[in-house]
Every structure is written in C-alpha cells, then in structure tokens.
C-alpha cells in the first residue's frame, strides 16, 4: 500500500480499487505502515530526520 502510494502515485481510492480492499483498510495500512517505519528507526536508535 505504501509503495503504491509513495512510488507509483496512486491515490488511496485507486489503491482500494486495485487491491479490492475497503478504503478504511487502505488508510489503516498507511497508518500502520508509517508507524512501523518509525518504530524500526526508533528501535535502531536512529532519529527520524525532520
């Protein structure tokens, strides 16, 4: 979901259609995915540059 959004430039609605998922699930996976990236960086003691 993150790759489709970030690299391929699909909107969340297009992704929902493409993967045949409810829109809420796509949004939930975006939320979870970003959270996991943050946790991965935090767990390795790397500050997320901002």
């Amino acid at each position, binding site marked *: 979901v*993150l*790759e*489709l*959004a*970030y*690299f*391929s*430039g*699909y*909107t*969340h*609605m297009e*992704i929902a259609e493409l993967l045949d998922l409810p829109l809420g699930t796509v*949004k939930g996976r*975006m*939320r979870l995915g*970003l959270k996991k*990236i*943050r946790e991965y*960086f935090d767990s*390795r*003691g*790397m*500050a*997320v*540059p*901002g």
Partner: protein
Amino acid sequence: MSDEGHNSGREPGHEPGRERFDDLKEAYALGALSEEERREVEDYLGMHPELRAEVDDLRSVANLLALAPQEYEPSPELRRNLLNRISSSSQGVTPAAEPSPRRAGLWRLFGPGGLAAAAVLALVTVGMFVWNAALQEENQTLQGELQGQRTHALEGTGAAQGVRGEVVRLGDERAMLVAENLPSPPEGETYETWILREDVPEPAGLFEPDAAGVAAAPIEGSIEDADAVAVTVEPSGGSSSPTSDPLMTANI
C-alpha cells in the same frame, strides 16, 4: 466535508474537520490524496497551523521509504494493455463448434471442464510471460531514470573522505540526503546542509549521523534549478551562512 456516510454517528461536540484531518493525514503525507482531498487537508492546516508539525513529521517518515529497495507496481496503462492482449488472444482460441478428431480424443480424456482449464492455464502462462517482459522493460527504464536523473553522488573531502552518499530526488523539488560512513561532528557542532545556486548557499537543514555513521535527512527547500547541495560543519543550532568549507558536495 464531502465524506458521505463517514460523519454519521459522531459524538456531539467532536470537531468534524479534525476527524477528517486525522483520517486523511497519512495519505496526505504519502501524496496519495485526490486533488480535492489534498486541498481539503491544506485548508484545514491553514486554519490549524499547530498541526503542521505532525504532518511534517509524517512526511519525514514517509520520505524514509526512499531508502527502501524499490519495487514498482506496473502502471495502470500496462495493466490495461496486458488485459487487452489476453482478451484478444482468448478470442483467437474460442473452441470450434465441432471438436477435431485429435481434440475429440482430448475431449474424452479431460472432458469439457478439463479443456477449459487447460486453455485458461495456457492463457495465464502466456499472459505472465508478456507481463514479465513488459515489467522488466519498465523496471529497466525506471532504474535508468532513478540512477541517471534521480540520484546525485555525494563527494566527501577531508574528514568526510570515506563517506558514501547520495542526494535522492523525490520529485522536481524535494530531495533527501543519505550518507553512510559519516564521522560524528565534533562536540558542540552539527552538520548543516546547503542548497547552492550560483554559489549562493541557502540553509537546508541540520542533521547528525547515528552511532553507525548513517544519516538520512530531508533537504529543506526546493532543489529545482539548484547547482549543488553541500554539507558543512556548523556550531550546534546551525548558521544562516556557512562558517566552514564544504565537507561533502553533490552536483545537481
């Protein structure tokens, strides 16, 4: 707010705009909103500037995807072409009304269901080959784009001689600086990124490498029409113009 059906059942007193913002913010950070939704979020941010930091933070996390190995989804056009090719070739193999003698043998062996399954399997196999070839071609084009225009090698000098790094473009304007084997800056100092246009440096953010000497920092400001991105060592908190010679430079 245009999210029909979504706003029902809200507790009285809960601000609908905020709920909508919370619903859309991740997709906004990933650049995955429709034009209309994007404007909606930006309007809301305009009214609530205190939420800007949260969105910037999400966007920084999203930008870390640029560091991940990239696998590309085929474009919608490629998908359409493939489906067209499959449907046109399937018209070519529509079974004749009268089975040929050889086919009659197969017919007896597999029955109508088995033949249909074999035909579908053959089609899918052909489709996979076509798709695979097309994907490989697209992948090569994308890799070429990525390597040819999307990344700019970072050259280190002095203390940063052994640094390996790149400036990765994320669009026409946005970019990230990624580097490894980067020594920690001296006590009380930090790395500062600069965007150079005709030798005039604009401050573009501060960063420090982690314990392993790895850094990934968004370049703050547009790199469109920039000549180079440079990194200097500056006192903690950064400087408004460089106080030392560049340790690393990437020509854009």
